[in-house]
C-alpha cells in the first residue's frame, strides 16, 4: 500500500496539474480553519463565551509537530494520491488525531479536580473533522465495499468511540462533561428517543403494509389513499402536533383509561401519532412500488401451481417486493430519528430535550449532547438498512 502511495506522489510537473478537486477544496477548508479559527475554546463556566486557544498552546511540542505532520500527509493524499486505500487510511488517521488532540487539549487546560471550566472543541476542530470525514467517505465510496464490509466498518468505528468514551479519553471535553452531569437523564431520553422512533415505525409498518397491498390489489382506491398521505406529509411537524393536541386532549378527558395509558394532548402520544402519520406515505408508496415490480409470470405461476392467495402474497409477492419496501423503511427510520427531536417541544421527551434545553440556556455543549447521538443514530440506521436492502436485492437480481 505504501509503495503505491509513494509511486503516486507528485514528482513531476505533470502530476502537479492532476490535483484532485475534492481534495483541493477539503485541504483549503482545513488549512483556513487551522489558520483563522480556534481549535479549542476555554470557558470558565458552561454559559459564558470562551477564549480561543491554539494547538501550540495546549499540546507539547512533539505532539503538535506530529499532529501537523499527519495532517500534512492527509492533505498530500487528498490532493495527489489516487489510491483510495491510502486516502482512506490517512483520512481515518487524521480523524483519530484530531479527536485525540482535542482530548489532550482538554486534559492540559483543565485545572486538576476542576468541575466548572469547560473546554469546548472550536471551529477548527469541527471543520477538520468534517473535512477528514468527507475525505474518508469519498475514499470508502471509491473502494465500493460490500454491504457486510460497510456494516462491519460502522460497528468497528462505533465500538472504538464507545471504548474511548468508557476509558475516559474525552472526559475533560465539554460535551462529555455535560454527559457526566446528565448521565441518568441521557440514558432515559435516549431510550425514549428510540422508543418513539421505532414505535411509530412499527405502527406505520403494521398499518402501511396492508394499506399498500390494498392499493396494489384495488387500483381504484390507490389515488385517494396516496393523495391523502401526501397531504399529511406536507403539514409541518409543529403544526401537526398542534392539530393533534385538541382531539387527543378531548379523548383523555372523555376516556379515563386513555388518560391512564398516557394518551393525552401533550407528551408522547401526539408525537407518536404524528410520526406514525408521516411514516405512512413512504411505507405505503414503496409497498405499492415493490409489488408492481414483481414479475407477473412468477405470480401467475404461483397461482397456477396451487398456492393460496395468502401464500402467493407472503411467499412470493412480499418477499420479492422486500428490497423496495425496506428502502421505504429506511426513509421512515431516518426521518423519524430526526423528527423525534421536535417531539421534545410538546413534552414527548427524547434527545431533543437536551437540544431545546441547551438552546434555552445558550449552552451549546448541551445542544451537542443531544444532536451528536441523533446524527449518529440516523446515519447508522441508514447504513444498516441500505446494506440489508442490497443483500436482499442481490439474491433476486
Amino acid at each position, binding site marked *: 500500500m505504501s509503495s503505491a502511495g509513494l509511486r503516486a506522489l507528485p514528482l513531476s510537473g505533470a502530476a502537479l496539474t492532476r490535483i484532485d478537486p475534492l481534495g483541493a477544496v477539503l485541504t483549503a477548508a482545513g488549512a483556513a480553519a487551522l489558520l483563522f479559527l480556534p481549535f479549542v475554546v476555554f470557558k470558565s463556566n458552561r454559559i459564558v463565551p470562551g477564549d480561543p486557544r491554539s494547538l501550540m498552546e495546549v499540546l507539547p511540542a512533539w505532539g503538535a509537530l506530529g499532529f501537523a505532520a499527519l495532517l500534512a500527509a492527509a492533505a498530500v493524499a487528498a490532493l495527489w494520491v489516487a489510491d483510495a486505500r491510502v486516502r482512506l487510511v490517512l483520512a481515518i488517521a487524521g480523524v483519530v488525531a484530531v479527536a485525540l488532540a482535542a482530548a489532550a487539549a482538554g486534559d492540559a487546560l483543565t485545572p486538576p479536580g476542576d468541575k466548572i471550566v469547560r473546554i469546548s472543541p472550536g471551529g477548527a476542530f469541527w471543520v477538520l473533522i468534517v473535512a477528514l470525514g468527507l475525505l474518508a467517505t469519498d475514499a470508502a465510496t471509491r473502494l465500493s465495499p460490500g454491504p457486510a464490509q460497510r456494516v462491519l466498518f460502522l460497528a468497528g468505528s462505533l465500538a472504538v468511540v464507545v471504548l474511548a468514551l468508557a476509558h475516559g479519553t474525552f472526559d475533560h471535553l465539554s460535551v462529555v462533561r455535560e454527559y457526566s452531569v446528565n448521565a441518568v437523564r441521557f440514558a432515559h431520553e435516549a431510550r425514549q428517543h428510540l422508543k418513539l422512533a421505532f414505535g411509530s415505525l412499527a405502527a406505520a409498518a403494521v398499518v402501511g403494509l396492508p394499506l399498500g397491498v390494498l392499493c396494489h390489489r384495488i387500483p381504484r382506491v390507490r389515488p385517494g389513499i396516496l393523495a391523502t398521505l401526501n397531504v399529511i406529509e406536507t403539514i409541518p411537524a409543529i403544526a401537526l402536533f398542534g392539530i393533534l393536541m385538541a382531539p387527543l386532549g378531548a379523548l383523555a378527558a372523555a376516556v379515563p383509561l386513555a388518560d391512564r395509558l398516557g394518551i393525552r394532548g401533550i407528551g408522547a402520544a401526539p408525537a407518536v401519532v404524528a410520526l406514525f402519520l408521516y411514516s405512512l406515505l413512504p411505507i405505503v408508496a414503496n409497498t405499492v412500488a415493490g409489488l408492481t415490480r414483481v*414479475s407477473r409470470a*412468477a405470480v401467475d405461476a*404461483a397461482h*397456477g*401451481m*396451487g398456492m393460496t392467495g395468502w401464500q402467493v402474497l407472503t411467499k412470493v409477492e412480499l418477499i*420479492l417486493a422486500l428490497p423496495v419496501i425496506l428502502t421505504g423503511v429506511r426513509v421512515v427510520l431516518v426521518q423519524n430519528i430526526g423528527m423525534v427531536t421536535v417531539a421534545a417541544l410538546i413534552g414527548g421527551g427524547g434527545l431533543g430535550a437536551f437540544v431545546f434545553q441547551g438552546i434555552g440556556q445558550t449552552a451549546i455543549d448541551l445542544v451537542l449532547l443531544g444532536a451528536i447521538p441523533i446524527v449518529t443514530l440516523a446515519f447508522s440506521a441508514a447504513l444498516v438498512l441500505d446494506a440489508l436492502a442490497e443483500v436482499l436485492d442481490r439474491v*433476486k*437480481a
Partner: protein
Amino acid sequence: MITVESLTKCYGGATVVDGVSLAIERNSITAIVGTSGSGKSTLLRMINRLVEPTSGRVLLDGHDTRDEPAYLLRRRIGYVIQGNGLFPHRTVAENIATVPRLLGWDARRIEARVRELLEVFSLDPATYAQALPYQLSGGQQQRVGVARALAAEPAVLLMDEPFGALDPIIRTKAQEDLLDIQRRFATTVVLVTHDMDEAFRLADHVAVMSGGRLLQYDRPAVLLTRPADPFVSRMTGLADRAMRLLSLVTAGEVALPGASDGPAVAPTASLRDVLSELLWCGADSARVVDADGKPRGRLTVAAILAHGRP
C-alpha cells in the same frame, strides 16, 4: 380424461370463450391453436380455474372441477407458462419442490424427486440444484419450468405458449423433450400455441379457435384433408398442406414388403423427411431399417406421393 362442457367466459359485454365443448383423451397431447384474442389461453386457464367460467363446466375424470377449492385442484394439475415464471428468489431445487412442499411431502421424497427430474432434463444436480434461476440460460430455465410443473406427478399438464420465448434450435430440442416426457410419465398434455408447426409436430388432436368459438377439433390429418371452415385451412396453410400431411405419417407405418438399394431411413422418420432424402440422393426408393439394422421393407416415391393426397 378432460371433458369441457359448453364453457363460456364473458368479461363485461365481451364474450371471450363462447360455448366450447371438447373431450380430451387420457395420455394424449392436445394443441389449442388460434390467433391472438381467439380465447385459447382463457380456455386453458378455465381448466385449472385460474379463470372461473361464466357458464359451463369442466370434468376431470368425471368429477366437476368445482367440487374442491381451486388451489387444491391446481396442485394436481401441472402448469407451464411462457417466460417460465420461475421464482427468482428460490433455487432451482426449491422451485421444482414447490408443489410437493405444498402437498406436504417429506423432505427425503422431495429431494429424490427433484434429483430425478433434474436428471431427466439433463441438468446435473451438483451444478444446478442450488443455482438461482438468473444463473441459467433461457433453455435451462424453460426446462426447470417444465420440471417444476411435473414435480408432483400430475396426470394433466397445461402449457400456455411454453416454447414461445425460445430460439428455434432450443425450441426443437424442448419439443422433443416434451414428447419423451409425455411418453415416459403418461401425462395428458394440453398445449396452447399460435405456431401451427408446433401443433402438428406435437399434438394427437388439434383444436382450432377463432373469436372465442371452437371451429374444429380433430386429428391433424383430418384438419388438413377435411377442414370444417375456411379459417381452418388458412390456419393450417394451403401452400404446403401436402407436405404437412406427409409429415404426419412415419416410414414404419406405411413401409411395403420388398428390398431396395436406395438410402436407409429409420422407421420413425416422417414421409416428408424420406421424400426429401430421396430427392437429395436422386433415388426412386428407400430401405426402411430399424435401429438394430433389421430391414422393415421399402418405400417408393410413388407410394409416398400417394400419401400426400387427401
